[in-house]
């Protein structure tokens, strides 16, 4: 099995603050990998660093066996790695129709056949062509997130970075989006790195996961271990307990 993404000793700092402190993660090709941890622990920063959106101070990032330099990425990279963001209200350009947002990546990479691809992408995420010329404000949160997924998929990447793709959504809508993600992963044999603060979601979606705290990875374990309670760190155990719901006492 080849590694899709390999992060070694990665440090990201904003001014004096280390958002990531010597983090290492390996994700195998075709795997679905989860990142959990409390707010501010650096989960998003890790994804953004891989995507070239965060200032890397130290460490190496390899994607599909190619070493990446700093924040520079070439066009090939963007065709193999795409990202879906947490907030569906902020990740779509408010002044552009769905059509334009889906057309943009095709235009940038000079991919022809836009018409068919857009229709196909919309279809794939379960939205018909009726949504094609809407503006984001004419869509619900779940629909927006589907558009964001369609946009990420339209360049046919092999790796998808998912930054809490459902945390802003209702439980019922969350289920639909999670199902959709599972399905495209299966169909396209994608590699996922998925961030969530919800252990339920992560165990549902991922095979393996890493627990983060204060910019460090405190534990790596498989979903099965987590479910079975084979947990090494207290912090992970706390998270586990908290996800079970309120208990009076």
């Amino acid at each position, binding site marked *: 099995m080849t590694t899709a993404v390999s992060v070694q000793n990665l440090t990201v700092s904003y001014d004096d603050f280390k958002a990531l402190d010597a983090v290492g993660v390996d994700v195998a090709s075709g795997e679905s990998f989860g990142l959990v941890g409390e707010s501010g622990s650096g989960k998003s920063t890790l994804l953004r660093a891989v995507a070239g959106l965060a200032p890397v101070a130290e460490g190496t990032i390899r994607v599909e066996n190619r070493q990446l330099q700093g924040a520079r990425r070439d066009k090939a990279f963007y065709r193999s790695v795409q990202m879906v963001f947490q907030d569906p209200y902020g990740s779509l350009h408010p002044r552009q129709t769905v059509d334009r947002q889906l057309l943009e990546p095709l235009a940038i990479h000079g991919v022809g056949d836009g018409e068919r691809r857009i229709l196909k992408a919309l279809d794939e995420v379960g939205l018909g062509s009726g949504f094609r010329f809407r503006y984001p404000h004419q869509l619900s949160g779940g629909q927006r997130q589907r558009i964001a997924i369609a946009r990420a998929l339209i360049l046919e990447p092999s790796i998808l970075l998912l930054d809490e793709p459902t945390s802003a959504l209702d439980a*019922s809508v969350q289920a639909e989006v999670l199902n959709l993600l599972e399905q495209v992963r299966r169909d396209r044999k994608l590699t996922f790195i998925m961030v969530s603060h919800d252990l339920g*979601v992560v165990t549902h979606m991922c095979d393996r996961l890493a627990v983060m705290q204060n910019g460090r990875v405190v534990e790596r374990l498989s979903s099965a271990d987590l479910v079975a309670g084979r947990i090494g760190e207290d912090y992970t155990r706390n998270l586990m307990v908290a996800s079970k719901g*309120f208990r009076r006492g």
Partner: protein
Amino acid sequence: MSALLTVEDLRVRFPTRTGVVEAVRGVSFALGRERLGIVGESGSGKSQTGRAIMGLTPPHAEVTAKTLSFGGIDLLSAQPKVRRDLRGKRIAMILQDPKYSLNPVMSIGRQIVETLRRHESVSRAEARERALDMLAAVQIRDPARVFDLYPHEVSGGMGQRAMIAMMLVAGPELLIADEPTSALDVTVQLEVLSILDKLVAGRGMGLIFVSHDLRLVSSFCDRVLVMYAGKIVEEIAASDLGNAKHPYTQGLLNCMPVIGADRHPLPVLDRKPEWAL
């Protein structure tokens, strides 16, 4: 159990350019000194129900009800002054997101003191004392320090505790908590909830707990109202949740991924138009 709050056929309408939006369409319930949960998906009218009780509906909205009475006072016909005096003193409300609900340019202590001094004529020093006590009651470790901090200087969990302190300092009889923990981390969420729980139990307040998380509500409240499209589709005792009859309630319960349960794909809600009728 005598009813603290009686709501009968509450309706909230928003006239807009594209027609009238009915956010709440005939909600009725009565509340004693108990924990009542209101759940429902986004836009189902939970917040508007809470706000209508508080009298915080935007001015251009229409609020009507057969009965909307609190402790014998008819809220709808009451003078604005009377309602203002009720707010904060006898009915309080916790808003969802501490980041936006605290005045960013006022120290936390001053915001708490402000509530107190609005409703009771107490000296500055005494108000400070009581605010500090209240901060301690919501389990803030170093109240004197936090008193002088500004909202941006505290974490979300701390901000939410400050918000609770601010709303409870005048000792209300009814507390409406509108998604008080949805902006918080799971671990912090539970801490905040347990504080709320203790305060309600200790003070004998009535509590309306609004949330979209059915499991959370059911583990926290005594009774649950399930709302859909501005209406109550089911009322159920928390302990009875497993036997929910309405397909919407069942759907809400089922669609959450649960640790250990291996359901692929997750069951999804199939909304029926007749639910909204």
